[in-house]
């Protein structure tokens, strides 16, 4: 709870910058609109106004500042416009409505969770293989690293189209992209975690003549739990990004990605921004949830000082 004040300070600073940026960003279109409404704007032609920067135009038309915050299609929406749009689409809309962000959020979240589950499972299996099998140790890790260097924006449409051509559509292809992004932090974290017991702890098990599986279940796996949680927190946010990216290039009709695209294509920046913020809040909540799970688990295991 000690972090509340610093967090609020940063949020406040960002909001202030945002509000300050709204005025010059929207000034040109505000001036155009004001002229159409019969107000006197200086300079008088749109072409002449293009010669000015947003800031310069603001200085010449200080009377229009208030109007920059309430444009219907702003270049940069003001915070309260985004808040109102989110209120309307999250709270007021029926969640079965195609315009409800809760509906779109669930579409993205379900793909995220499925993909995250697949990615985490795969990541743990690969990590166990890497730790216990020399051939996998030598061969898998370079490929895992290489897989993350390919831009996901280039890869996602290819995977969606290929899966689509063999009749797999909807949730699953998006989950694959999520899994693709989220398995990597799990592999890296789990390999490190499973290898974290030192020579002494391994020797101790040898003095008991413990079997390999006893070594795994009683030493390596519990020792890797803190590493796993760190990976899960990175993995879940990567999975959400994956699901959104998978919705962007493929003309998906639902999901955060689809909303962002619709807002862009139909000149409704508020829709895009609301989806963006909803996605960010979803990601933060998921990471927060895993932080909480981590704290509870580690405390229960006795690995943190309560």
């Amino acid at each position: 709870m000690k972090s509340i004040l610093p967090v609020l300070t940063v949020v406040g600073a960002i909001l202030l910058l945002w509000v300050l940026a709204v005025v010059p960003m929207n000034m040109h279109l505000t001036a155009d609109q004001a002229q159409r409404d019969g107000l006197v704007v200086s300079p008088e032609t749109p072409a002449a106004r293009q010669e000015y920067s947003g800031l310069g135009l603001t200085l010449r038309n200080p009377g229009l500042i208030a109007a920059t915050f309430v444009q219907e299609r702003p270049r940069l929406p003001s915070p309260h416009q985004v808040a109102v749009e989110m209120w309307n689409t999250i709270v007021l809309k029926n969640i079965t409505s195609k315009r409800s962000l809760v509906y779109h959020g669930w579409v993205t979240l379900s793909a995220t969770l499925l993909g995250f589950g697949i990615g985490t499972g795969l990541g743990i299996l690969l990590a166990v293989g890497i730790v216990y099998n020399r051939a996998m140790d030598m061969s898998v890790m370079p490929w895992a690293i290489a897989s993350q260097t390919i831009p996901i924006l280039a890869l996602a449409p290819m995977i969606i189209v290929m899966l689509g051509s063999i009749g797999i559509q909807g949730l699953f292809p998006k989950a694959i992209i999520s899994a693709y992004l989220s398995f990597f932090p799990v592999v890296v974290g789990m390999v490190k975690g499973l290898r974290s017991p030192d020579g002494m702890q391994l020797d101790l098990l040898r003095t008991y003549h413990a079997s390999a599986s006893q070594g795994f279940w009683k030493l390596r796996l519990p020792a890797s739990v803190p590493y796993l949680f760190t990976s899960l927190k990175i993995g879940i946010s990567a999975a959400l990004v994956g699901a959104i990216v998978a919705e962007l290039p493929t003309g998906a009709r639902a999901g955060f990605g689809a909303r962002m695209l619709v807002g862009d294509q139909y000149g409704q920046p508020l829709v895009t921004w609301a989806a963006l913020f909803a996605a960010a809040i979803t990601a933060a909540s998921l990471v927060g949830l895993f932080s909480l799970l981590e704290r509870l688990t580690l405390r229960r295991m006795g690995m943190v000082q309560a």
Partner: protein
Amino acid sequence: MNDPIIAARGLDLTFKTNDGPVHALKDVNLEINKGDFVSFIGPSGCGKTTFLRCMAGLETPTAGTLTVNGMPPEEARKARAYGYVFQAAGLYPWRTIGGNIRLPLEIMGFSKADQAERVERVLELVDLAGFEKKFPWQLSGGMQQRASIARALAFDADILLMDEPFGALDEIVRDHLNEQLLQLWARTEKTIGFVTHSIPEAVYLSTKIVVMSPRPGRITDVIESPLPKERPLDIRDSAEFIEIAHRVRDGLRAGHLDD
């Protein structure tokens, strides 16, 4: 009865390293009898820990013969003939003290009821009764090391191998643990191999002191202690004690003069 518990004859061990071979042990001969408390003392690199690890079957000698309970160390290890106490307590942080002591018992397949009974008994033995449900971080360093000794005692091996178990503890705690260790040894009649850096510790604890020297690691002196089995802490001020300590120091110095 008179067969030695541990017998080494002409033991050699050479480690291959990137800088060439390292002669860790050279022509080591030693017999340890049942109920002996044997200390290995010497400077760093004299092979005392390596020798102990050979007895435990954690290292394999390159030449010579070594038997533990009449069999090769590897087999003795598989027969769970000894308990090993490391330099650090090495308790699992995710297990309670009781859980840590149960670890070898679970691995060796003791029944649940037997486990509970043994945990209680060894905790009593190391004076940690009542701490079963505590986690390691709730205990001091000395208590953690006592818990690790309890863990080594839990499955009733006749041999206890200890590798500088009190090396990281301060002197007051160390004195106290030494006293307790002697009482424990008297009660359990185990055979103990004990690696240490400290001359007073070696003389106070041992019935037999093995002085070693480095490059190559070898035994330079074996001192049979004439001290009685009952040893109060102030025995360290007696003339006999000081005489043995002197002989150990001479042995250590002689080893160094060879360099």
